[in-house]
């Protein structure tokens, strides 16, 4: 009986997790990329109008990261951390999953900018 109770609890937890994952994945994209190091915000970069795509290097105490900004997308192009997981994460387009480089403590996340969103909502 205890096995059964355990697996029912487990399945409920997993279902909640699956729903949250889907919800997070389907959230709308944002318009501002926020880059922070050690929890301090370094840059806030608008993602609109960056058709060409440009790179932002970050360097501190031997920690090197290069962040690539494109129209509506952000990705980590280079990091000197040992695992390179942040590079493998690829491009992020929505505000749920930030790119985290744990060894270098660099976080890149997308924020939905309310000031840009609001006029659209009014004009509709």
């Amino acid at each position, binding site marked *: 009986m205890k096995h059964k109770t355990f697996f029912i609890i*487990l399945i409920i*937890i*997993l279902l909640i997790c699956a729903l949250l994952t889907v919800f997070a994945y389907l959230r709308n994209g944002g318009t501002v990329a926020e880059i922070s190091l050690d*929890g301090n915000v370094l840059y806030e970069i608008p993602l609109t109008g960056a058709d060409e795509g440009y790179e932002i290097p970050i360097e501190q105490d031997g920690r090197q990261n290069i962040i690539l900004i494109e129209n509506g997308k952000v990705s980590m192009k280079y990091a000197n951390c040992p*695992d390179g*997981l942040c590079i493998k994460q690829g491009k992020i387009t929505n505000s749920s999953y930030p790119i985290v480089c744990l060894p270098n403590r660099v976080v890149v996340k997308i924020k939905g900018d309310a000031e840009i969103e609001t006029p659209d909502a009014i004009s509709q």
Partner: protein
Amino acid sequence: MKHPTQSVNKSLTSKQLSLCAVLCAIALAIHIVEAQIPPVLPLPGMKPGIANIITLFAIIYLSPREAFLILIVRIFLGTIFSGQPSTLLYSLSGGIFCLLTEILIYCILGSKFIVEISIAGAMVHNTVQVICACLVTQTAEVFWYLPPLLIVGAVTGTFCGLCTKFILKYTQKK
């Protein structure tokens, strides 16, 4: 003849000690090999957690105290050998809380629930690591990684639990 400063039931016998050493070596090897496996999904913090098999095995075959020693030695040496000192905090916090959960459930339910113990351990490991990452990076958004990590944790936890069950079946003790 008793050693004057040690009570017999608290010191390890040489057989237990050598078993501990062998388990440490196996866990360390798994830990290092595991760090080289490229991640299947782009999820930071995702790994198979196969070294947990050794920890689970030690809890049941030896005792929680030995399992704790093996875990600490494995994490410290593993961090040194894999050359990623920054991961020590995550490994250590995740590992200790995982072990405490496993010991707790083991003490309450007993060794018939190996798979359940393993799943609970894996999920607590993931949760504690995400909390750690959240505190280190000061970013609450890191918590969005927890749901998919818990799903992966449940799968790898089941796998490790079943492995431990098979190992225990063929080692035949207790």
